[in-house]
């Protein structure tokens, strides 16, 4: 019983870690010759990957998977809310800056 749980947790951790390492790849493709360049694609994908990680942490580590539907929906709504706020402020800010 415990071992199957632990295996699942380990797989989750591996997924989260590999998603973290994916940032290295994003980072390498975004920059040329060590100078950093602004990029909407990188920004959006960085935020989206982070939010997917947050949702996985919610579902698996924080055991929302087994929680009543209210908490499931609430945490999902929160991920969406955070996404809207972050992407919204990025795009609104960009459009103000021109």
């Amino acid at each position, binding site marked *: *019983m*415990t071992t199957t*749980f*632990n295996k699942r*947790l*380990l797989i*989750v*951790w591996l997924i*989260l*870690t590999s998603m*973290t*390492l994916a*940032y*290295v790849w*994003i*980072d390498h493709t*975004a920059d040329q010759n*060590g*100078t*950093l*360049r*602004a*990029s909407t694609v*990188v*920004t959006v994908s*960085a*935020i989206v*990957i*982070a*939010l997917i*990680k*947050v949702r996985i*942490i*919610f579902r*698996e*580590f*924080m*055991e*929302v998977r*087994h*929680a*009543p*539907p209210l*908490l499931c929906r*609430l*945490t999902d709504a*929160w991920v969406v*809310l*955070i996404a809207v*706020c*972050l992407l*919204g*402020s*990025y795009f*609104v*800010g*960009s459009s*103000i*800056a021109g």
Partner: protein
Amino acid sequence: MTNLADSRPQVKEKPAKFVPGQPDMWMFVLFESLLFTGYFSVYLVSRTQNEQLYLQSQADLDLRIGIFNTIALLLSSLTIARCVKASRAGNYRSALTNAFLTIFFGVVFLVSKILEWVKEIRLGNTFTSNEFFQHYFFLTSIHCIHVLIGFVVLGVVVYQLKSPARRSQQLVETGATYWHTVDFLWVLIFALLYVVR
């Protein structure tokens, strides 16, 4: 609660739905993440107003340190999740080991964070250097304060696990929920400070 669960046959296949830890802690998690979303939004808006400065300053951050931080915290999240499972199964020895591992990885995170601050300050990037480093030092240090509070919380978890007289599963889960919050806030901070372009 258990009586209720026993009376229903299908419960055996699907474990009963429950909120891990105190529901009160979940209100804190949601409220605190909303607050951080506020800080992040301010950061992203200021960033778009002065993109070149942020990009130049960002070049002084080392992505590898950020990744190391993240993996350390993810490991601590893994161990505290294992701690919760073990303590639920009544395996308190393993739960304690995992709680101490969590503390260990938390300390690793903290030390690597402090070393990174020292490195940045040596490079001449301080809290007052420019707008990017204002946000960098603010977000990392407010998060570190959460880590420090987390050590108090983990202390409570260890205290609960140590004696058979206590061992409140609810408090262990509440502490774990707090610690995971520290973790996922760092996941967001990491993406926003190190990766966003």
